[in-house]
């Protein structure tokens, strides 16, 4: 017996809508607004459609005809990632008794479960004559992983006979084909209401993607940025007003229950063995085409850059930044979309070569990191909030553009300094040498019953910078000092940055420069008793 996987035909026949009389189904129409928020704990950097950890606030208006008395208003077609507890429905007349969100949607497996113990029809096709015989039957087990049916003849297992068999369901389970939010409402009179529905939904994220193009003279750059936003929901948002919010906000999304798309209904038979040595444990028939794999999707290629892009409009939202996409746009399901964030030109920059070195340690020669520095203010043709994202830096010379580096940028407020690494430079090498350690004994120290040897230690170090470039360069060296260690002398200009010593010096073209520095710290060690 070869393994055979045949789809079990699920025929829905003519379905009398079993919906109660007071059910009001409200399809999607009217105004849509989507505000996309970035994942709160995602590090700065790009997003991937396969794993969108951010979320969105969806606001929409729908027109509802509310009948008098008790009714259930069903809003179909909400995003499948909806966080039901955040849903707000305003504008309904009368009293909202409760709001519900049903995660069970219509799938073949759900259909079997809902039909357990109820009447169905089995259609058997005679393989020779092609004649279809229909017999009434009752489902006796729920299609979790097997289907047993009872007919007037007795009990049979579905799909174990080798005959083409299918089930026609007669009753319609109370299941929607799309995620549905509903409200139980009691209205004193029939009315037509304009209802605003708003909810948070998972499966969105956005990131800013900057391109920094350094001019050939390395004195200025152009900065452009796209907002890349993604929707991994199965629901699209046609012609929506779209906003993006920058800034890190608290939001926990881990408590959301997943949508139950059901496991595939599998009709599993008894062990089917043969007298040949080729045997199958089970004959499994996949009943459904809707499988979990269907939810996964391919990464869409980012949309191509529009030639003349319309910029998003910025406004302040409390302590956050809200960017409005100027025109209505369609956010399709499983789509990545880009809109232009900013375009700034001739931003004055300063370039330097640097290294971050541990103090009092030998460091083998390493290539210096080239870094771009500017300030986010109007004097530098900037002066606007820069939301976190990824920066790709390029340099142009003689019509050639070369990618230098790709680095993350954190949320940068107006007037903040910006430092962006733009690659390492093998022509500038930096090494550190520990030259000498001096130890001076101090009077011993008693702490309780423990006696400590106390000494003052100083270290003399040398840092060498080799410049193989044909130009004079600026070098900045940052030291990582151990706890309690101070720099007591240095032969280069010493300043401090973030509480750490910084040596700044120019290195002429094709020359070597040397910095000597001396540190000191107190060493306490328990005295060894002999």
């Amino acid at each position, binding site marked *: *017996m070869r393994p055979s996987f045949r789809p079990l035909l699920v025929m829905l026949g003519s379905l009398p809508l079993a919906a109660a009389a007071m059910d009001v189904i409200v399809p999607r129409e009217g105004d849509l607004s989507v*505000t996309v928020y970035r994942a709160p704990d995602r590090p700065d950097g790009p997003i991937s459609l396969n794993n969108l950890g951010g979320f969105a*606030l969806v*606001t929409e208006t729908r027109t509802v005809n509310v009948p008098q008395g008790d009714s259930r208003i069903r809003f179909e077609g909400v995003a499948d990632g909806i966080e039901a*507890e*955040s849903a707000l429905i305003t504008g309904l007349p009368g009293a909202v008794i*409760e709001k*519900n*969100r*049903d*995660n*069970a949607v219509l799938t073949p497996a759900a259909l079997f479960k809902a039909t*357990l*113990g109820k009447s169905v029809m089995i259609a058997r096709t005679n*393989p*020779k004559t092609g004649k279809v015989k229909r017999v009434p039957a009752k489902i*006796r*087990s*729920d299609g979790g992983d097997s289907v*047993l049916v009872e007919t007037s003849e007795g*009990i049979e*297992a579905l799909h*174990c*006979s080798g*005959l083409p068999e299918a089930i026609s369901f007669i009753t319609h389970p109370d299941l929607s084909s799309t995620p549905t939010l509903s409200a139980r409402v009691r209205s004193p009179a029939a009315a037509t209401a304009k209802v605003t529905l708003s909810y*948070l939904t998972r499966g969105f994220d956005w990131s800013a993607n900057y391109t920094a193009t350094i001019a050939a003279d390395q004195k200025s750059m152009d900065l452009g940025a796209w907002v890349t936003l993604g929707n991994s929901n199965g629901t699209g948002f046609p012609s929506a007003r779209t906003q993006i*919010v*920058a*800034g890190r*906000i*608290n*939001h*926990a999304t881990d408590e959301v*229950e997943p949508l139950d798309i059901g496991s595939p209904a599998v009709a*599993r*038979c*008894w062990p089917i063995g*043969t*007298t040949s040595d080729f*045997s199958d*444990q089970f004959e499994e028939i996949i009943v459904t085409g809707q499988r979990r794999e269907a939810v996964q999707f391919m990464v869409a290629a980012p949309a191509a850059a529009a030639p003349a892009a319309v910029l998003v409009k910025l*406004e*302040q*939202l*409390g*302590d956050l930044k*809200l960017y409005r996409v100027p025109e209505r746009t369609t956010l399709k399901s499983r789509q990545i979309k880009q809109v232009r964030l900013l375009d700034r030109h001739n931003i004055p920059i300063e370039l330097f070569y640097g290294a971050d070195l541990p103090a009092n340690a030998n460091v083998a020669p390493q290539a210096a990191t080239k870094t771009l520095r500017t300030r986010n203010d109007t004097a530098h043709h900037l002066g606007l*909030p820069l939301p976190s994202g990824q920066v790709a830096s390029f340099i142009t010379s003689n019509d050639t553009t070369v990618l230098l580096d790709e680095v993350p940028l954190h*949320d940068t*407020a107006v*007037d*903040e300094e910006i430092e962006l690494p733009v690659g390492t430079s093998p022509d500038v090498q930096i090494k550190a040498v520990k030259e000498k350690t001096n130890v001076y004994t101090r009077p011993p*120290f008693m702490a309780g019953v423990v006696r400590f040897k106390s000494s003052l230690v100083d270290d003399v170090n040398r840092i060498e910078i080799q410049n193989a470039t044909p130009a004079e360069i600026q070098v900045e060296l940052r030291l990582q000092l151990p706890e*309690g260690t*101070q720099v007591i002398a240095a032969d280069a200009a010493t300043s401090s*940055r*973030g*509480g750490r010593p910084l040596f700044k010096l120019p290195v002429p073209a094709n020359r070597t420069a040397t910095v000597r520095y001396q540190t000191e710290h*107190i060493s*306490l060690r328990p005295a060894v008793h002999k």
Partner: protein
Amino acid sequence: MKAKTPLWIGSAVSALAVLPVVAADHDVSVTIYANDTALIQDHRSINVTGGRQRLEFQNVSAQIRPETVSLAAEGITIVEQNFDFDLLTPTKMMEKAVGQEVTLVRTSPGTGAETREKALVLATNEGVVLKIGERIEVLRDDGLPVRVIFDKVPDNLRAKPTLSVTVNSPKGGTRPATLSYLTPGLGWKADYVALYNEADSKLDVQGWVTLTNSSGTTYDDAKTMLVAASPGAPADTNTWTPRPRPRSTLVQPGTETGSRERVGDFYLYPIAERTTIANLQTKQVSFLDVHGVPAEHAYEFRNPWLGTSEKPQSAQSVYRFTTSARAGLGDQLPAGTLRFYMHDKRGEPQFIGESQIDHTPMGSLLSLSTGDAFDVKVQPTVVKRTALGDFNWRTEMRYSLTNALPKPVAVSLLQDGLWGDSTITAESQKSKRRSADVAEWTVQIPANGKAEVTATITTRF
């Protein structure tokens, strides 16, 4: 049909009369606790015959904790309770049919004609072995279509996990009974929507109780009660985590008593009407709607001991309000999530962050952080650490604060980890020691401006 020797008639329990308890007139009460536990009380009329018998209860929670089941009815004694998971599958059917006769229906591939014959099931190991007349055959060895028809479903195979109770009753008759049990899979929490009005610093707060059902069963038309308590939850006081604890949201616990129904020390949130709690459903019912609560918007930055940063870090955006009856929400708040919204320039509410809150008594002062402030930043720097002597350190701190907003702001700057015996020997502005561990400076930053605080702290470490 020949006489059969059904195997399943061997066991004592199945030999008893089985009475499925019909769910015709049942009345369910569901009491849900805040930690994914619910007490289900199922009141039904049961009809018992005299003597020993088995009662079956279907439609109980699929996640029922069988050890918590109790059946109370007049004049019956319980012999034993079983929760049967032996589910009806084709494999089980065939296994239970060993030694019995089944009907085979063969369809000829040549003519399409059906022939019927009886077969005795001999074995089902790795394939079904049948005895047909004097022949021994393997079922569908040739791959040709064969239907197998069983006469009946064995008594102890169920389509769903089923609870059965064997009882002893001296006399028969119909009587009310209550089946109660605990089940996980039902839980509730509170969800609040707070709309902050920046112009007059007021909050409109709506509260919803959100109950979720993932227990696998639907409770029809249930009387529902929510209890703001987590019984049986392990006390987390014994677990010590070295990570800094999340910032406390409760500044000052309240001392006012609310008007809501209580049982013991717990508040109850009854749902006014009977409701159907469907499986895989999230249900929300409103319980709070307050407008114009005065609130204060502030900024907070907490620096850990020796915290130093090369880049400015965002301060937290914080909202403070009280739950007192006089100038606040006027209610105790069950634990849950409070989501803040604010109107954008077009007047549309936008989400601006959320905070978890614990069960909060009435009259409390809450301080909730919604996230980072984009424009208000603090760069803490350890300028110098000097060993003044043995076990005597001097730490010079500098905090650079920036404000890119077009309005002045006040930042509550907190230096944490001071231990008890450290002293601030010099500071650029007066600090308040919130506790032995924490010093607080309230720093005013002008619009689009900067401020700086320096402090020298002497410690033993």
